Structures are given as structure tokens and as C-alpha cells.
């Protein structure tokens, strides 16, 4: 005998909500490389936070100690000291906050503006879409590093400008991703149904279109953090990012260049830190893409 269990609407909704998130997580967990990316990111985040608490910027990070300059890695200074006698490991740990915050804030900026523009372009189509796409073309036409250089020299070098510059550079990418994600959703029957029942365009975009075109945007966010960190460190390396003496990784690498012949660890470790961080975000992005859309993996 078959017994039918009755579900209340609330129960069903709760079930549905849980299942989307947990299914993505279940798929994500299956990939060891994706999990490794996530674990590395968590470790870097924790290390960065602890470094902010235990180290004092003026004493541990920028104060010079010429007695101990250019010491090779040892048990007192695991990664050695730089030309001003500052501990490289401490500076790298403390400096994680620059790369992470530039990556995250700039992606937040480009995601917010880019996705909104992309949603509008994809949803309304026609003239609006044309204008937005042409504007994107303008900003994509300029190589991102050159656009970054132009913005940095226009508004001066600071962490805030760097975040803004990288954010602006990647706006078109989000706009295009969001637009492409909206296109297949736009002509679905449920959108038409919502329109017929008199729902406003704005609320259709946010309640129906956006949730159904989220996956590519989420993937773009993680990849965007990776690209943002790389571009930011290039700009700092060229002397156009976070100004010295802040321990930004790209800037540390650049200032170690003079000593490359005899003290190559000065350039090696900051670069390694950049690579590991970027790698972690890339692995996470790959894992998320597979988890959000298992079909793609085939």
C-alpha cells in the first residue's frame, strides 16, 4: 500500500533551497583540486587576519633594521630579510591583505556595475543593448594593463585607486558574461507569464532573470579575483600600484630586483605568494563551474 505524504509549501520551499546549495556543494566536494583551492584560500585568509592582529605596521612591517639586512633564509628568519632588514615572511603574511582586498573589492565593483549593465542589456535588447555593448567594446579595446596604467596615472597611486582601476577594467567582462547568461532566459515562458501578470520589469529582472543566470556570473567572480590579483601585482611591479613601503607582493618583488644576482630569494618568495593565491582562486573557479553546471564537464 502506498501512503502519500503531504508536504506544506514551506517544507517544499525549504527543501528546494537546501537542495540547490547542497547539490552544488556535493558536486564541488568531489573535485580534489577544487577543495585544495578552497582550503588554500581559507588558510591565506586566516593568516592575513592573524597577521593584522599580531604585527604592528610601523614596527614589524616598515621599520628598518640595517643590522640584519639581506640575511638568507634561516631559523630566525624563515624566508630571510630584505635590503632594509625586514623579515620577508612577516611582510608577505601582512601583505596578503593588499592582494586579497584588491582582488575582492575590485571584483565587487566590476560585478556590481558589469552584471547590472549586462542584465539590462540582455533583458531589454535593442538600442539599450547596442549602446552597452559598444561601450564595453571601447573599454575592452584598450589592453587591461594599459587601461590600468592610464587610470593609475590619472588618479594617483593608492590602494583605493588601484581597487577602482582594476574594478573598472573588468566591468565589460562581467557585462558580457551577464548578458550572455540572460539571453537564453529572456525568452522563457515564465518570463512572459510574469510580464502578462503585470510584474514590473525591475522585479522580473531581480526575481526571475538574475537567479536563473547566476552560474556564469559566480564563476566569473572567482576567476575575476584571480585576474584582479595578477593585474594589480603587475601594476605594483611597474611602480604604479600600491606605493612603497607597503608590503604589496608585486612591489616587494620589484624592489628585490636590484639584488637578483646574489639574493634571488627576495624576488622568489613574493612571486610564489602571488602564484599560490591566484592558483587557489583559479582552482576554485574551475571547481565551481563544474559544480554549477555538471553538463559542461562532459
Amino acid at each position, binding site marked *: 500500500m502506498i501512503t502519500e505524504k503531504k508536504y506544506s509549501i514551506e517544507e517544499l520551499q525549504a527543501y528546494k533551497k537546501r537542495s540547490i546549495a547542497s547539490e552544488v556543494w556535493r558536486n564541488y566536494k568531489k573535485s580534489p583540486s577544487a577543495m585544495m583551492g578552497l582550503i588554500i584560500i581559507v588558510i591565506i585568509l586566516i593568516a592575513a587576519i592573524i597577521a593584522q592582529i599580531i604585527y604592528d605596521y610601523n614596527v614589524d612591517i616598515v621599520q628598518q633594521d640595517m643590522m640584519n639586512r639581506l640575511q638568507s633564509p634561516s631559523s630566525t628568519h624563515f624566508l630571510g630579510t630584505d635590503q632594509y632588514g625586514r623579515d620577508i615572511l612577516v611582510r608577505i603574511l601582512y601583505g596578503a591583505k593588499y592582494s586579497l582586498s584588491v582582488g575582492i573589492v575590485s571584483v565587487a565593483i566590476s560585478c556590481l556595475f558589469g552584471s547590472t549593465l549586462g542584465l539590462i542589456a540582455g533583458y531589454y535588447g535593442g538600442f539599450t543593448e547596442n549602446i552597452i555593448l*559598444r*561601450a564595453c*567594446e*571601447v*573599454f575592452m*579595446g*584598450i*589592453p*587591461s*594593463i*594599459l587601461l590600468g*596604467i*592610464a*587610470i593609475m*596615472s*590619472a*588618479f*594617483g597611486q593608492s590602494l583605493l585607486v588601484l581597487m577602482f582601476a582594476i574594478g573598472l577594467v573588468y566591468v565589460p567582462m562581467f557585462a558580457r558574461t551577464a548578458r550572455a547568461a540572460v539571453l537564453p532566459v529572456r525568452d522563457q515562458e515564465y518570463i512572459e507569464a510574469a510580464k502578462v501578470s503585470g510584474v514590473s520589469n525591475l522585479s522580473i529582472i531581480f526575481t526571475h532573470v538574475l537567479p536563473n543566470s547566476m552560474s556564469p556570473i559566480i564563476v566569473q567572480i572567482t576567476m575575476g579575483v*584571480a585576474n584582479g590579483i*595578477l593585474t594589480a*601585482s*603587475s601594476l605594483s*611591479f*611597474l*611602480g*604604479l600600484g600600491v606605493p612603497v613601503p607597503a608590503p604589496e607582493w*608585486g612591489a616587494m*618583488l620589484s624592489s628585490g*630586483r636590484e639584488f*637578483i*644576482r646574489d639574493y*634571488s630569494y627576495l*624576488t*622568489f618568495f613574493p*612571486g*610564489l605568494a*602571488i*602564484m599560490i593565491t*591566484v*592558483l587557489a582562486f*583559479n*582552482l576554485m573557479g*574551475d571547481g565551481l563551474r563544474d559544480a554549477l553546471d555538471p553538463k559542461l564537464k562532459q
Partner: protein
Amino acid sequence: MIRYILKRFLMMLPVLLAVSFVVYFLMDLAPGDIVSMMAPQDATEAEIEMMREEMGLGGTLPQRYLRYMVNLLKGDLGDSLSMKRPVKDVFFERFPATLKLAFASIIVAMIISIPLGIAAATNHRSWLDGASMITAMLGLSMPSFWLGLLLIILFSLKLGWFPSGGSSGITSIILPAITLGAGQAGNLTRITRSSMLEVIRQDYLRTARAKGVSENKVIYKHALKNALIPIITIFGSTLGNALGGAVAIETVFSWPGVGRLTVSAINTRDMTLATGCIIMFTIFLTLTMLIVDIAYAYADPRIKAQYSK
């Protein structure tokens, strides 16, 4: 076909105009004024203003931009303030070096990525696949200037095989080309692999195998030809990435290209030179993308058909 080319070309013009305005506007905002830097210490405001007029830097922003664009169309980008020479001459003197580096890096990228991508796809889910994907991921995640410095440490300082910078002879391009190519290779390997995986499942490959064609021939003759299409399609953006990436690499290897020129122009506040370089660079890139697109449309009957009426 003519209609397609014409349409694409007309669509490009407003974009180029907007690009030039954005760059001009940004560079105009930059603090640090070369005129007051060059003026004698005791110069008065009026004298500085006169110097500004003489150097062609007077007037409001729209006036200056308009004058700049009119001159640009005449082929005049102004004079570099620090080098005392026409920007156009300086740019075209340096540009071939950047192009050479970009093309060399693309060749390096292809030499690395195509065999790696094929190996990964034909041995799907084996250790070889995993190893090539990890390599590709590392290439994508590595800051290129760091890789450049590591190569300098190993191959020019420790082993002394290649020069660490400059552009004298064929050996000097090897390290910068590998550095710039490695980043591109990461991307291209992933694309080769996924497009190869797709092609391998096609019916015509099964047919070829059923006919008794040898496995090597199936892979290299039937599959590879089709798998390479996406790589050719993205040639425009690959070249764009290579040219953009060259900016940092040229600085690392003291390569006498436009990228290093632009960075040093910014550092010396020579805004006429920097603006000219960025605008010319972008125009060149946009034109290249257009040519690649047209060539692609020419080669692909499906795109051609859309515009043949």
C-alpha cells in the same frame, strides 16, 4: 562580403573615437605638469601659460582633444616632451620590437600547448591529462614578470646561456618569448584539450576508424584539423593578450618595445608620448582583431552566407 567588411569597419570608427577620448581624458587628468617642471624656477604664471601655448598644451579639454584628433588624422601625434622628437617616430621605431616579441611568444605558446592539449585529450582522465592540466593551470596563475625573473636567475645569471636583457641577436628574444608565451600556453592548452575532446567524439572519427585508418592518422589528420579551429578563431585575442602582457615583460628584460616606452613615459610624466603610445597601440589592436574576424568570415562559409545577399 564587401558589405560585411564595410559594416565592420564603420562600426569600428566610433569605438576607436571613444577609445581615443577615454585615453586622452584619463591622461589629461594625470597630476604633474611637465610645463611647470620644465619652466625656470622664477617663471611667472603668465610665462608658464605662454610656454604652454607654445608647446600646444593650451585651451580647455575639448579644445585640446579636438586639436589632438585633427592632428592624429593628419598623422601627427605631437612631440615627445622629454625626447624632443615626434611621438609618431618614436612609436614606430619601437613598435616592431614589441610585435616581434608578441609573435615569438605566440609561436612558443603553440609549440607548448598544442602537443600538451592533444596528449591530454587523447589520454583523457589519465595521469598525463592531469599533469598537463596542472601545468596549464600553473601557467595561467603565474605572474609573468615573476617567471621572467626566475628564468633570468636560472638561465642568464646561474648558467649564462642567454643574455638577461636587451635585444642583441637571436638569443636575447628567447627568454622574453618563453616568459610571455607561458601565460598564453596555459589558456591555449585548455582550449586545445577541450576542443579535441569534443572532436574525438564525432561520428566522422568513428567512420575513419571503422575504415581502418591508423590511430595516429585519425588523431593528427582528421581530429587535429578540426580541433584547431577554435585556436585560430581566438588568434585576435591571443595577440591582444600577448601585446598587453608585453608591457611588463619588456620592463623585466629591458626589451626596447612600446610597452617599456609607455611605462617610462608615464614615469617621466611625458604625457604626450604616453597618450600617443596607448592610443596607437589600441588602434593597432582593434584593426588586427577586425582583420582576423574578416579572415575568419572569409574562411567560414556559414558567416560568409549571412552577408552574401
